């Protein structure tokens, strides 16, 4: 390992001291770490809210909270988990930290904009909190459907504005990444030499850039409605609430792909490394990322099959929804085929990735059931939907996030966590997850609606069972996160490449120095060249664990 000091020891500008070295930094790695810190805080709050909701639902006649409190809690849970956790988590943390390194650059293209986008994220979060105390917790659900969101007396105006600010933050991040990938790749790195994580961030960024303004303007109109009573979405004044739903989902469905695409990128990085084998179908994965981004932007109205639409529209949107399943399935086949005849090395990131594939498949298939026009009518707004999107969002993106955290944790902090505890946590988490969300499918089919604070007595046993699953799940999560934090107590530092990866971030020290690279990076003609890596490891001594 070279003696180059890590970016923790060198502020991005010599004038910055102490806390300011963080708060005014333009170093993409520090900004990534700052995102990690704040996003984990929001994630924890979201978890607490979620477990409160499920505890309430364990009994038919809940004593824990009133209906209004329940409405406020699921709104908060949704807003926090979606806008403050899942959407920013992977692009802002891993994208910021790793994307420039993966393409051989020393920073993102607009470092100051990058910092601005962190501050906008913080401002959005603070505004969201302020809105709670000023006028009462919003009770609309995270979708802010009109006309209720226009009429309710709770602090919707401010929280909608908070979401608007968060949107700008996410948009700027996307803009920054697209420019960075286009302009700052190493000269000899062509598009087909980009690592797949970078590719997935690239596809995501386009969606962030082009879809976010739509929800931005829609939410602005909601604010205008509340302040001036313009009437654009108010049926009593001639407005059409359905148009709100269209505009909202024009963003918020693509937003689902903002959440899942980078997650798929992480998984595509993990499988080849732990199978010691080149990724199966690199180009197919790239193409499917772009296909998901494009087709995924055209399926929004499948959220509205029962809101009132022509049959033709229902059929078209249903068909398009089924089409998105194809590129997603291609990716799953590619991941599984990568393992085939690989030399598999089991470590916590791989276990997370395997769980991801399973849970994501369940989530994806149940999505198709909803995408079909017929069954959709039966299960619309039931717990089936709750089960489905938690399978894709948490079982998909959440697990990929944790997989990435375990994969790159040594790169971030130069410390390795305990494997046994990580395995225990993962298994608890997965078992609890399945116990928790699987019953929701059945509950939904039996007719239990979502967003109700109580239900019919005969549904109690299954709700109680799901609640126990929730506690096991949260227990697993706590084990996983505490285990990661406990790694800081370890003394021994981690080599540059603890896993034997081939992309550029494994060729820099852990944690990387301020300018990322100690030596000018060498771009492989193919980003997943494991035979070459194997020879490198042999010639440089016993293993890659010597570092570079």
């Amino acid at each position, binding site marked *: 390992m070279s003696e180059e000091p890590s970016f923790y020891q060198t502020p991005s500008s010599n004038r910055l001291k102490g806390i300011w070295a963080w708060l005014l930094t333009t170093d993409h790695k520090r900004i990534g770490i700052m995102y990690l810190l704040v996003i984990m805080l929001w994630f924890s709050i979201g978890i607490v809210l979620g477990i409160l909701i499920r505890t309430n639902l364990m009994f038919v006649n809940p004593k824990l909270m009133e209906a209004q409190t329940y409405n406020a809690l699921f709104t908060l849970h949704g807003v926090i988990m979606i806008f403050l956790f899942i959407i920013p988590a992977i692009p802002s943390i891993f994208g910021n930290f790793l994307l420039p390194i993966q393409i051989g*650059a*020393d920073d993102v*293209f*607009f470092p100051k904009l990058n910092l601005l986008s962190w501050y906008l994220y913080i401002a959005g979060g603070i505004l969201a909190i302020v809105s709670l105390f000023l006028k009462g917790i919003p009770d609309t659900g995270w979708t802010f459907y009109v006309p209720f969101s226009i009429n309710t007396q709770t602090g919707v105006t401010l929280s909608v504005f908070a979401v608007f600010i968060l949107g700008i933050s996410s*948009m700027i991040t996307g*803009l*920054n990444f*697209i*420019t960075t990938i*286009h*302009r*700052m790749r190493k000269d000899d790195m062509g598009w087909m030499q980009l690592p797949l994580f970078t590719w997935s961030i690239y596809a995501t960024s386009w969606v962030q*850039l*082009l*879809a*976010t*303004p*739509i929800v*931005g*303007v*829609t939410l*602005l*109109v909601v604010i*205008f409605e509340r302040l*001036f*009573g*313009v*009437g*654009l979405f108010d049926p009593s*004044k*001639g*407005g*059409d609430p359905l*148009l709100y739903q*269209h*505009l909202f989902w*024009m963003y918020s469905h693509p937003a689902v792909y903002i959440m899942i695409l980078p997650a798929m990128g992480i998984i595509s990085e993990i499988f080849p490394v732990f199978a010691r084998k080149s990724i199966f179908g690199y180009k197919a994965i790239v193409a499917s990322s772009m296909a998901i981004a494009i087709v995924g932007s055209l399926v929004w109205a499948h959220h509205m099959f029962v809101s009132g639409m022509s049959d033709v529209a229902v059929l078209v949107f249903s068909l398009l929804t089924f089409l998105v399943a194809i590129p997603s399935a291609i990716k799953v086949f590619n991941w599984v085929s990568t393992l085939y005849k690989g030399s598999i090395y089991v470590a916590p990131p791989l276990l997370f990735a395997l769980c991801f594939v399973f849970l994501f498949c369940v989530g994806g298939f149940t999505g198709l059931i909803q995408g079909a026009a017929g069954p959709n009518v039966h299960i619309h707004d039931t717990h089936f939907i709750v089960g489905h999107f938690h399978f894709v969002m948490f079982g998909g993106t959440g697990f990929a996030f944790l997989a990435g955290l375990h994969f790159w944790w040594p790169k971030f902090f130069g410390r390795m966590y305990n494997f046994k505890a990580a395995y225990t946590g993962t298994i608890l988490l997965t078992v609890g997850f399945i116990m928790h969300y699987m019953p929701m499918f059945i509950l939904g089919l039996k007719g239990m609606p979502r967003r109700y604070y109580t239900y019919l007595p005969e549904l109690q046993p299954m709700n109680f069972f799901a609640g126990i699953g929730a506690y096991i799940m949260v227990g697993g999560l706590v084990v996983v996160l505490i285990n990661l934090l406990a790694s800081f107590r370890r003394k021994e530092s981690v080599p540059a490449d603890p896993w034997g990866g081939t992309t550029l971030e494994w060729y820099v020290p852990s944690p990387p120095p301020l*300018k990322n690279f100690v030596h000018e990076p060498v771009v492989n003609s193919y980003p997943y060249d494991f035979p070459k890596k194997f020879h490198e490891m042999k010639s440089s001594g016993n293993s890659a664990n010597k570092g570079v």
Partner: protein
Amino acid sequence: MSEHHVDNTGSKFGMWLFLYSELMLFGGLFVLYAAYYYQYTTFFISGGKQLDLFLGTMNTVILLLSSFTVACSIEAMRKNSKKLVLLLLGLTVFFGILFLCNKYIEWNHKFQHGIYPGSAYMEQSAKGLVIFFGLYFTMTGLHALHLLIGLIVIGVCFFLCWSDRINAKDFITLDNSGLYWHLIDVIWIFLFPLFYLIL
């Protein structure tokens, strides 16, 4: 590794991306316009006739002129004639303010007739008209807000040129600000016929 700091193509690329996102922002409102135009066509026509065609046309001319002066200022910067740049940027700011004044007169006029969102007069009007004027105020209002931001940006450029921090060697800031100003112009070019010229 710091050569990217002078990558003007990259900066411009980023600016274009931002302009796309602005187009999407207004695009959402244009979608609303299209849907409501389909639903309330006759009201949109009668609403359009109530708008002041003269002031609207004036504003179109003013904005086109301002776009011209911005474009010229960039060309002048390329030829390194600072005085001309400052003059042209000053003219741009002047045109921008003129546009806002006209807008103020126009809106004020409407307000005096009780035409504004949530007014008693609008409560009694036909729903189609409420929507037409709702869209009118929302879209031209958002456009005016952009113009205000544009004015600040051009104003900052003016001072940066004045203090030579934007110069013939490095004028990408001016270039990008000009792009933003053109965007404001282009959006107005679409707003004008949709509100003032519908039959």
